[in-house]
Structure formats: structure tokens, C-alpha cells
């Protein structure tokens, strides 16, 4: 879709490797050139808030390290040998073979190779994820569908009322995915659902994946990524899906999300409202307590907002900060390069959720164009908050504005379990944004500060 790119914010389809690694005890096997797997890891784990190798990622990843011989004569035999080795030495519940560009161009068929092992009862899946086929949002969808078709299989068990599968953020591509998924799961459980969250520490791994067909319905919490997954599940298992396109951040959106899910799932309205009331009471108790700080430091605080992130995050975070925290969105940069059909949908979602700031929207995957736009709009302003990646951090530092990390690449922050999702997430975000005000030199309310370094 997009042409040339500088200052990248996503990687290629082989990024699906990280989706596999996000499933507890699932193990990727890469059929690609010798550097591909590490480059994915460096971008999507190390460069995503210094996330580590986890259980079996990083240098542990099995790979054919395709050489000239494999490219000329075909690499399927070498792949079989690497798979045999991998299942001998690695402890895993699911092995997912992914192809890179070399395999894709010469026509090595990883699905076919995997099927031979699967016929012998091995938990093996093969998915084509050549880098030139698309980005890692595409790769994520492809590998999830591949696992469903080849591993979860054709079962049509009776549905369990109140059980849902959740498809939302893309693990690792969303650097906060671990905290986000825990938060989403916890919110949904509070209103009475049983949740297959599928990825991360809150997931039961392949056992949970095997239960996907039993879910009463699927929740898609994302504007477009995952749409192909839930429509596929609808066809395959007859389970409908509930599509909520906005990331619930802060009190208003989270309450709206819980109400909408509750209504769709026909949960007890009374229970849902009770939970919402309780959560809001706690939320506003904390929220109002920020008032003293805001009142005191008003002179030094930013109010203009620039957000660079994918469509899920850019819309969700901007909406919260605009609607509930009073920021003026000057630039909303949507970086996930949706295809034309999805693009229209994202535009509609943005129009509905941030109606007054449609002129601030820019769909752009080339980071230097985003940077240029931000700099032009900023002018000499030193009262802006830039939210985004390493690339926006650079602009914030150059222009003396405040900065908050939200999207990849993130090389200068450690992210463990932080989240900006839900009631708690909204407060977390404010704590991080305003906490940065004090990260540099002394800032006193008694002194008006022109440029805010925020420690940058």
C-alpha cells in the first residue's frame, strides 16, 4: 500500500513470530534468511520497551538460515531437518513454522511441510509470512487464522454461555500489550464473562486456543486489525462477533465499552451498572485529586496534543485526552497503513469519536512526513504534548515540549506491565505524562518555564 518509508513504526509480515511467542509455550520455527528472525526480535521486542526473549524467543528461535544453496535448490529438506531438531530439543505445546522472503519467492511450501508432521500427531502449523506480503499487522492476522485452521481445527462443540474470545491489540507491536490484555481480561471478568485472552501471562496457552470454538461470541476490540480473524471464526464456528472499535481509556469510554458488551452479551444490567458505578467512584476519587496539581502548575502544563500511533491507539488515546482531559488534538497520525477498505472504516470511526478534529487526522506510515507535519504545526509552541515513538521523542526534545511513549519503536523505556487501558489505564497515563514534567530540572509553580524538557 504505502511506498517508501523512513522512520518506521512497524515491521514485515514475519513479525508474526512475536504473535506466536505471545502464546504461552508456543514456539516459532523460521524458514528464512539468516538475519530475519533477529531483526524481528530487535524491532518488536527489544525496540518495544526493552521486552525480552520471553520463554523461547530471541536467539532461541529455530531458523533454517537460508543460504545460497537453499535459494537455488529449494529449502524444504533443510526445513524438515530443522523442524525435527526443534521438536527434539524444545519444550513446546505448539510449533508454528513461518516463511520469510527467500522461502516465499522460491516457492517453498511451509504449510505442506508442517502438515506432514501434523499428520504424525505433532502440534505443528505452517503459515506463509514472507516479508514482502505485508506488514506485521497482516502477519498477525495470517498466523492467528493459520493456527485456528491447522491447530484448533474443525470442531463444532456446544457453545458455553458467557465465554468469549478476545481479539484486540497486536502483541509486541503494541508495546503495552501485556498490561493491556490483563486489563481487558480483568474488566470483562468483572462484568461476569469468562475470557479467553489468548496471549500473555493471563492466557492458559494452547489449551485456551483449543477452546476457541466453545465461545459464545468473539470480541473484536480494534478498528480493523483482527476483523479478518473474527469474520473467519464466524464462518468457521458459527460464533458471532461484537466489534468495539475504540480502545477504552479512562472512565467515559471504559464505561461505554462495558455497557455495550453487557448489552450484547445480555448480561444483567444491574450487575454491569453496579460495577461501572463502583469503578467510576474510585476513578473520579483519584482523578479529582489531580486537580490540585493541575491548578498549581497550570502555567507550565501542555494543552496541545500530537499523537502518533496505530488506529486503535491513536483514536483511543486522543479521544480520552481530548474528551476527558481537555487537550486540543493538533495532529493525529495514524501509522498502521490500513488497506483502502479498512481505511474508510477507520475514517468513520475517527469521525464519530473525535468529530471536532477531523482536520488533524493524517494517515501516514512514512515517519519523516509525520515529523515534518508536527514541526510545521508546532511552530514555536512549547505547550504541546507529543505522544508516540522514539521518533517523536526526538522532536519533543528539539522543540522543548513534553513527551510520552505510546507506540513503537520504543528504545528508551522499560515497559513491564504498564497499561493505558481501562479506568486504571487512564490514571496511569496521566501519572506518566505529568510525572515527566519533573524529570528534568526543577520545575516550581513559582517560576514560569518557557520550554519543558521533561528530562529529555
Amino acid at each position, binding site marked *: 500500500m504505502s511506498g517508501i518509508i523512513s522512520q518506521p513504526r512497524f515491521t514485515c509480515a514475519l513479525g508474526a513470530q512475536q504473535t506466536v511467542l505471545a502464546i504461552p509455550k508456543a514456539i516459532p520455527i523460521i524458514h528464512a534468511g539468516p538475519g530475519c528472525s533477529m531483526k524481528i526480535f530487535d*524491532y518488536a521486542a527489544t525496540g518495544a520497551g526493552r521486552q525480552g526473549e520471553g520463554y523461547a524467543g530471541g536467539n532461541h528461535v529455530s531458523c533454517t*538460515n537460508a543460504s545460497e544453496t537453499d535459494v537455488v535448490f529449494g529449502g524444504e529438506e533443510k526445513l524438515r531437518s*530443522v523442524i525435527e531438531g526443534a521438536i527434539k530439543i524444545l519444550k513446546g505445546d505448539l510449533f508454528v513454522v513461518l516463511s520469510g522472503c527467500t522461502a516465499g519467492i522460491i516457492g517453498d511450501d511451509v504449510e505442506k511441510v508442517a502438515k506432514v508432521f501434523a499428520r504424525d500427531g505433532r502440534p505443528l502449523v505452517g503459515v506463509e509470512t514472507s516479508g514482502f506480503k505485508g506488514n506485521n499487522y497482516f502477519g498477525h492476522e495470517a498466523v492467528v487464522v493459520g493456527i485456528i485452521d491447522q491447530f484448533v481445527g474443525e470442531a463444532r462443540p456446544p457453545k458455553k454461555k458467557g465465554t468469549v474470545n478476545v481479539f484486540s491489540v497486536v502483541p509486541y507491536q503494541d508495546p503495552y500489550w501485556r498490561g493491556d490484555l490483563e486489563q481487558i481480561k480483568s474488566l470483562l471478568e468483572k462484568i461476569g464473562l469468562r475470557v479467553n485472552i489468548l496471549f500473555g501471562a493471563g492466557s492458559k496457552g494452547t489449551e485456551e486456543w483449543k477452546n476457541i470454538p466453545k465461545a459464545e461470541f468473539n470480541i473484536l476490540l480494534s478498528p480493523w486489525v483482527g476483523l479478518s480473524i473474527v469474520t473467519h471464526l464466524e464462518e468457521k464456528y458459527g460464533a458471532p462477533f461484537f466489534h468495539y472499535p475504540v480502545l477504552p481509556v479512562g472512565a467515559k469510554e471504559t464505561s461505554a465499552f462495558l455497557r455495550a458488551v453487557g448489552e450484547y452479551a445480555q448480561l444483567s444490567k444491574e450487575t454491569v451498572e453496579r460495577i461501572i458505578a463502583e469503578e467510576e467512584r474510585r476513578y473520579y476519587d483519584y482523578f479529582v485529586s489531580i486537580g490540585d496539581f493541575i491548578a498549581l502548575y497550570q502555567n507550565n502544563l501542555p494543552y496541545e496534543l500530537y499523537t502518533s500511533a496505530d488506529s486503535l491507539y491513536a483514536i483511543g488515546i486522543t479521544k480520552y485526552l481530548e474528551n476527558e482531559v481537555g487537550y486540543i488534538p493538533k495532529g493525529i497520525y495514524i501509522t498502521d497503513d490500513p488497506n483502502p477498505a479498512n481505511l474508510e472504516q477507520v475514517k468513520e470511526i475517527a469521525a464519530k469519536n473525535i468529530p471536532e478534529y477531523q482536520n488533524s487526522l493524517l494517515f501516514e506510515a512514512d515517519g519523516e512526513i509525520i515529523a515534518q507535519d508536527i514541526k510545521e504545526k508546532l511552530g514555536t509552541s512549547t505547550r504541546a504534548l507529543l505522544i508516540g515513538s522514539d521518533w517523536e521523542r526526538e522532536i519533543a526534545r528539539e522543540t522543548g515540549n513534553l513527551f510520552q511513549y505510546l507506540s513503537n519503536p520504543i528504545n528508551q523505556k522499560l515497559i513491564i506491565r504498564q497499561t493505558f487501558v481501562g479506568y486504571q489505564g487512564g490514571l496511569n497515563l496521566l501519572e506518566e505524562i505529568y510525572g515527566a514534567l519533573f524529570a528534568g530540572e526543577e520545575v516550581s509553580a513559582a517560576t514560569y518555564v518557557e520550554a519543558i524538557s521533561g528530562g529529555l
Partner: protein
Amino acid sequence: MSLANKTVDIRENRLHTILHYNGDAQDLNERGKKGELQIGNSGYEQCGNCQEGCAVGQVYGILDAALIEHAPLGCYATISASCVSGKSTAKARGKGVFHNKAICTNISERETIYGGTEILREAILEAKKRYDPRVIFVTTACVSGIVGDDVEGTARDTQDEIGVPVISISCEGFKSRIWSSGFDIAFNEILRIVREPRKKQDDLVNIFNFVGSDTFTPLLSMLNLRVNYLPSQTTVEELSQISEAACTATICETLATYIGDELERRYKVPQVKAAAPYCLGWTDRWMREVAKLTHRESLAEQVIQKENERIRPELEVLRKELGNQRVYVFAGDAYAHNMANIASDLGMEVVGMTTYHHDQYADTREINTLNFMVESVGNVPNYTVCNKQPYQVLKFLKALKPDILIVRHQALAVYGYKLGIPTIFEADSNKCVGYDGIIELGRRIKRVFQTRKLIQNISENAELPYTDWWMDEGTDPFYFEGEHQ
């Protein structure tokens, strides 16, 4: 600018580089000198690195050059990390603020079918517009190589149009099993920038290195010499003058064996043919070699004496404190020899080493870092060669239980933590250079020992992904080797 350039052969052909070995340092040295070892094969592998990454790493940091990666986005997506290390290195060397000047052509399925030269041309024009560079480098990737894009032709045609040299670097990942071949390919193209010397700069020393601290300036300024760090954080103009330098040295022969040799051959810039300055003895010898090539012998003797005296008290304490420690080194070929040597000089016993590859010889035959190490440290038992492969290295480490592990590459140091071994991650490869470097490394090792509880806590709770059969002492770590020749 010379546009005709010879190509450089990959290391497996040129240096008879090997990827598999199990034995000891002395044996490898003797057999390697004869070039009698084979590269080796394994029926199972874990992911390596690629020569494209190594080539990109050499040209990305050139300050007024632009880079185009003619590749799908995944090859380029790590550029943000390179940008961060570029920024930190620029700061450490007083070079101002470093900015990204790299674009990816983002090859999609369409270009794999219809060819990617059009989008490459567009990227070159865009790079000229955005960065106004002195030179534009274009690197190739597996895809552009297999589909057969005429990258060199496109570069040539576009260069005439924009009036800026466009230099293509043919470094497709699948073309060499030795990722450091990418260094040679990049340097071979960088040589195009180098001009015929106009005057000799008698006080200029070429130092090939990666990113990292400025530790050579304090060392060489004592000899009244200037440092020309290469190639990262230099301008095209500075690069063009490397033919005028008094001599060439490197922190790691794995990095610069090819270009050091070429500069000597083409422009008579002599190489410092001593081991790099890692440890007291090697630093003394290196300083003497540099002094000889720059005619500063008596000054050097004064400096050496003074520096030895200056660091002696703390070095003696460190040697005493670290003297009974057993160390394992896991790093690139030549750099591993440097690290083993400095650890040994700190009094530690080098109980084993793994290097990611082994060049059976350097381009300049008399430079042999393994030989330097064996002469200095003595034989090192438990010497293996494998391109990272944690499934094997974890077994080596479990069997040997060293007191300390020294690792050079990203994402490998964590294995020490997972096994409960205090670990030094030597990411700043310049840090332990020279007289201060040895002291500095000793201090850092002591500091790591102080964090034992954290290391222990991680190791007690970390689960390694390997089967019991594989981790069993009885299972041969080389089980898969030699399969599928």
C-alpha cells in the same frame, strides 16, 4: 571518485572461515594456520544474523551520507535502534546531534513480480531531496537479489541525474553464511570514496571500530596523534582522507581485516600489526607499534612507563581480587580473543570460549589474533565455534559453571542471568581499550559480582525452553553437527 571497483569474495571462500569447531585454542590455531578446517554443517540451527545487517551498520553512521535499504520493511525496521546508538555515540564523541538519514523502499509483492527499480529510483530522488547528502548508499536484500533488480544500473543512472554519487552495496543476506562478510562488502564500496592521498597526515591514525566511547583519543593524544574513528560518525570528507593517514588500526580484526589490508595495498597506509590494545601487555606493544609507524619511539617509552606506573596500584589490587575467578568468553572471533586476553591479564582463568565464527586467517596473513591470544594467554580448553546457537552454548556453560561470563552481542548476555552466572555485556567495544580500559573492566566485573542476588533470583525462576533430554549432561552438544552436508 573511482567508480570501477573490484568485488570482494565472501569470507567462506576468501578467509576459509568456519562455523563449527570443538576443541581447544591451540589446536584450532595450528590447524587454522594450515587452513585445513571445513566450515561445517548442522542439521539443526537457531537464528543467526545476516551480512546485510553488518553492511548497513557500517554505512548508516556516516554523517553526511544517506542510506537506502532496497528491501521489504522488516530488513529496515531496526533502524530506530541504530539511530539511538548513533545519537549516543555522537554525543560521546562530541559530534553534535545524529539524525536518521535512511529510507526503505518497502518492497511489496508488486515489486517482486514487476521489479523494484522504479521504487528504488524514487527513493534515491527522495533521499537527495530530504537529506541533501554527499553520498547515497543503496543496500540490497534477499528479495531484491533473488528477483534480480538491477540495483547497480539504477544507482548509476540516478546518480547522473542528481549529481550525487550513488553507491550500491550488494549484500543479500542469503549469499554468505558468515555475517561479517557484510563488513567487507560495505568497506569495499566505502573505498570508492577514498581519494588518492594529496599529502601525508603524519599524525592521523585510522581506527576502525563500531559505535561506542571515545577511548582512543586519551590514549593516542599522549603520543600527539589524532584519531580518525571509522566509519561511523565520520563525514564523507574525513573518509576520503583515510589514504593520507600515518597508519591503520582496528579494535577488532573481524571488522576491518579487509579494509586495513586494502589501504595498505592501495595507498601504502601501514597497518598496526600488533594485537589490539586490550590488556596491559598488548597495549604496551600496540603503542610501540604505532610509535614506530609514526616515529615517536622515545615518547612512547616515556608514556608506557608513566601509564604503567599510574595504573599499577589498582591493577595489582584487581588482580588479587579477581585472581581465583574462572571466566568464559562468548563473542565474535577477534573480539573474543581481546576479551580473553584482558580477562587473563586481570588474573582470571579463561576456562572456555565460544566465538561466532573463525577466520582461519586474516586478509593480512601476519595478523592472527588467535595466535596472539595463544601466545599471551596460553592454551584455552573448551574452545568452540558456533554462530550464537544458545542451545549449545547453554550446555557448555552449564557443564563448566564459570564464575563470570563475558558476552559481546545483544540478547546473549541474558543467558548468563538465566543460568545464575554474573555476566558482563561488552556492548561498548571501545570501553576496555588501553590502560584505563583494563582497570575499568576490572571495576565493572567487581560491580557485577555485587548484584548476585538479582542474578540468582532471575535464574531460580527462569525456565529454559529445552527438553530434559537435551539439557542432560549425557546428551552431546554436537548431536546435530555434520548432518546434511
